[in-house]
Structures are given as C-alpha cells and as structure tokens.
C-alpha cells in the first residue's frame, strides 16, 4: 500500500452547516491530486482537517499512515503547507523565513545549510536569499512558500489555491515549478483549485461541490464521461456532406447554426482520416474537446462560479497590498 493520504467518510459541520460531507479518497505516492470545486465547496475545510488545523466532526484521515486526530505532530512533520493566503514574515529575508521554519521543524543546522540551497534553487530564488520578502512580487512570495514547505522533506505537499491572485503569466510559470517538483523530487502533491484549466495538470482529480465529491478520476476519464470530441464543419455543399458523413461513418450528424456536428471518440486521430477519405469539399473545420468546465456543468448543472472567485481575488490582492506594510 503506497497511499500517502487516506480519507474515510470525512465530515465537518459548523453549527449545523455541513461544510464537508462524507468525503472519501486516496492519494498515491508521487501523484498530483487535485481537489476541484467552486469557492465554498469545502476544499479549504478539507485541507484544514488534513493538516490538523481543524478537527473532523466524523470520519478519519491518515497522512503517511499517521492519524490526523491522534498523531498530530507526526502528521504535521509529514506535510508541507502552502496556504491560500500569504503566510510569510515579510520583514524577514527569504533565508530567515526558511531558517525559522527549519528550526520549528527540527531540521539540524548543517542539514539546513544544504537544504536551503536545494529548495531555493528549485524555485529560482537562490540569488534573492538575502532580500527582505517585502520587496518580492506575488509570484516570488508564492515560490518561496513552496520552497519553505519542502524544507523539512515532507511526504506530501499541500497547495491550497496556489495560483490565486496571480496574473496568468505568473500562474503558468508557477506551474512549471510545481511540475518540476513532481518530476525531480517525485513529490506527492495535494492541491485545491477552482481554475478548471489548472486541474488539467493533475494526475487525478476529485470534483467537490457543496461538500460532496461528485466525481473523481483522471482528467481524461472525467472528460470521457461527458462524451467524445466534437467536430464541427461547414461546407458549400452541406447536404451532400451530411449524407457522405452519415454513410461513411454511421454516426448521427447534428445541424447547428448552419454547421454540421459529429461526436467522435478521439478527435486528433479522426481528423487526418477525415481529410483523406472525404470526397465533398469542406470550407472550415473545428475540433472541440470537452473541458473540465463541461464536466462540472454536466455534473452539477451549473458553471463553476468564476465571477465570484474574481471578486474574492481582488479582495485578496487588496489584503496583500495591506500586508505589504
């Protein structure tokens, strides 16, 4: 058994309100596991229970085989945490922040000298180690938090909305670091996000809504549940094309907005075949693959609430500026 995280029937109630409702899942060693859902779905509450900040109302959870209720210190030593909101001391230098962490986690000082270089180089902050954190950009602060989370060699790294409040470019850049972590350190990563496109980087995801896991699997598997890829074509000889497609591929052809649509299992492989075989001339063609947005929509009947998220992001950004003191 090489499950780093095991969660069984985890439930958390706040004054009668159920934030996390009978949640069970496992995270295997070395994988990136994504917890996907809108704000308020129970993602952070789950992370807080797994990291011993909150006690579950019911159910149990094990990190690195340690019980989150009865073996708190062992659990804390087994996890690295990057919180949703910044948690650095911005009046200290990058290195001082790391040293503080190392001492609290009992990393011996000769070992610390070695590790600080290792983790700072991993996130490209080695040259900035003596700078006061206050002068760091949002992306750099996040990277430093990741480096700090790795310092005590945890069995699993928790990233709670790691890219929230960052601009798209910084966000993409941060993902390079997270993927490098998996590649070079074989790090197990448990992350939450409400950005559907980011969930694509995960090996496996669980979609959570109103405190319940509504689906889980690889992003590919989940998207398959929704259906296949959609190919949309237009042609001057539309009726002829429609007949030809129906005869040749024995598929249902839908007409929508003057275009023809068909659903296939593997769009990339199907397109070249289509080009080779078709006699009728086509004017334009579009391949659309289902996204996790479609998965969420089909599971819950709602779009993930992006607008709400962005206003929350703005507030966070505001707090960050205030935190800059």
């Amino acid at each position, binding site marked *: 058994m090489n499950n780093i995280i095991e969660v069984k029937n985890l439930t958390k109630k706040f004054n009668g309100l159920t934030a996390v409702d009978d949640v069970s899942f496992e995270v295997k060693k070395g994988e990136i596991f994504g917890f996907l859902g809108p704000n308020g779905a129970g993602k952070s509450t789950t992370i807080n229970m797994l990291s011993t*900040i909150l006690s579950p109302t019911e159910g149990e959870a094990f990190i690195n085989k340690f019980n989150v209720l009865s073996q708190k210190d062992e659990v804390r030593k087994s996890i690295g945490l990057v*919180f949703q909101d910044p*948690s650095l001391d911005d009046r*200290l230098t990058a290195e001082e922040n790391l040293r503080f962490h190392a001492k*609290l*986690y009992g990393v011996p000082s000769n070992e610390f000298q070695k590790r600080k270089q290792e983790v700072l180089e991993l996130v490209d902050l080695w040259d900035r180690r003596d700078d006061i954190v206050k002068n760091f950009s949002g992306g750099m602060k996040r990277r430093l938090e990741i480096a700090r989370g790795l310092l005590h060699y945890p069995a699993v790294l928790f990233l709670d909305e790691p890219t929230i409040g960052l601009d798209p470019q910084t966000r993409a850049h941060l993902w390079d670091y997270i993927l490098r972590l998996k590649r070079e350190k074989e790090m197990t990563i448990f992350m939450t996000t409400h950005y559907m496109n980011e969930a694509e980087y995960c090996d496996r995801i669980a979609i959570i809504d109103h405190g319940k896991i509504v689906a889980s699997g690889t992003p590919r598997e989940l998207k398959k549940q929704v259906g296949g890829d959609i190919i949309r074509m237009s042609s001057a000889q539309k009726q002829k094309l429609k007949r030809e497609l129906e005869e040749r591929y024995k598929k249902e052809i839908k007409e929508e907005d003057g275009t023809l649509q068909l659903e296939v299992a593997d769009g990339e492989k199907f397109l070249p075949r289509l080009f080779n075989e078709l006699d009728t001339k086509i004017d334009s063609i579009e391949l659309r693959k289902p996204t996790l947005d479609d998965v969420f929509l089909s599971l819950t009947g709602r779009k993930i609430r992006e607008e709400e998220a962005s206003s929350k992001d703005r507030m966070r950004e505001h707090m960050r500026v205030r*935190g800059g003191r």
Partner: protein
Amino acid sequence: MQFIQTIYTIWQRELIRYWRDKTRIISTLFMPLMFLVIFGAGLSKTLATGNFGVDFVQFMYPGIIAMSVMSVAFFSTISTVWDREFGFLKEILVAPVSRVAVAFGKTLGATTIASIQALILLILAPFIGVTIHFAIVLPLIIFMLLLAFAISGMGLLISSLMKTTESFGLVMQVLIFPLFFVSGAFFPLTAVPSWMRALANVNPLTYGVDAMRQILLGNQVDPTILNNLSLHAIPINALFLLGFSAVMVSAAVWAFNKRA
C-alpha cells in the same frame, strides 16, 4: 530540546523584527527621555515639596519605569495580532511544536524589548537627579524583568483573543491608563478608597512599582516613611508577578488552542 529551540526561534524573530523597525527603536529611546524630562522638570517643581517626606522624582521614578515597561510590552505583543492578520500565525500553528513554547517565545520577546526600554531609563536616572546605588541595580533589573514578563503575558492573552490590530489598539488604550493610575505610581495606595485598593490588588503594575520603590528608596528614606508608602514585602511582590505571569501565559495558550 525542541521545546527550548522553539522558544528561542520565536523570541529571535521578535527581536529581528524589532531591530528592523527603525521607528520603534527611535520611539523606545525617545519615550523614556520624554517621560523623564516632562515629569522630572514639570512635576517636581510643583509637587516636589512633597507631603510624604520623599523627593517626588525619586517617588515617581519606579512608576515611570513601570509605565514605559507596560506600554512597550503591550505594544510588542501586538505582533501576535499582526501575525494572525497577515497569515504568519498559521505557519507557526501548523508546525509540530508545543503551543506553550510558542506562547513563551512570544512573551519573552516582548519582555526583552520592554526590558531594553527599562534599562535605558536606568542608565538615564542619574542625569535627572535619581540616586541609584550600585548595589540596587541588580534587584531593580530583576523586577523590571518580572514586571515586563507579567505585562507581556497579559498582552499576549489579549492579543490572542483579538482579531484585528484596531481592536487590540482600542483595548490597550482602555487598559493602559487605569492600570497606570491605579498602580501607586503617582500617589501612595495606603490611603485610598477600598474599591481602588481592590483594583490595585489585581494590577500587576502595583506590585512592580511597590517593589521597585522599596528597593530604590530603601537606603535613602527613613524606614517608617517607607513603610507608610509600601504595600507588600518585596518577595510577595515577586511571587505575585510570577503567579500573574503563569496565569496569563496559560490563558494565552488556552486561547491559542481555542482560536486556531
């Protein structure tokens, strides 16, 4: 071992933050000076004739030390509210360390900073006409530390109950003046109404002022006069301050656990 290391790490961070904050350093240096100049020059001229047979500056001096120890200690414990507001407290609270050690580290950090302030006042004493014999420097310092520790513990308790720096500042404002006035710093508490005496009995400042005054005036004033001004024996004062600190730090640990 990890327990001591945690206390040390938390304490060290408080001091690093203090040294980086130039405004705070300047105000630590400036505030005692201001106190001594204003109280020394102003009050001594009007009240110096003193009905209690003691030079008023000598009488006031322990109160001024207590006052500045209190304000610096309180102000230093605000760091816990900051840590909560700006997220750093989470980093501390999820670490595999004892909360007791965290509370001790925080309290000792504020104690150290407040004691630095008190030491400056001690060094300045001769310049404003306070006579300090070499022999009483050590007992004075011990009581400065005890008082600073007690007040820091109290500050930590309040700051672990507060959500924002604004509310912390407000509570401090409300607390500082009553604590100061009902501490015997300005007037002896031997002849006050019983309700005031009751308040003074739970005020840590009272015990700090009382002890430091006895130490300071011990070999300068007639014992009968000193007896009239004093409330408790010096060891009793020390015991109260220690007990008060223990209660406050335990309550702060309890508040940490409850809130986090």
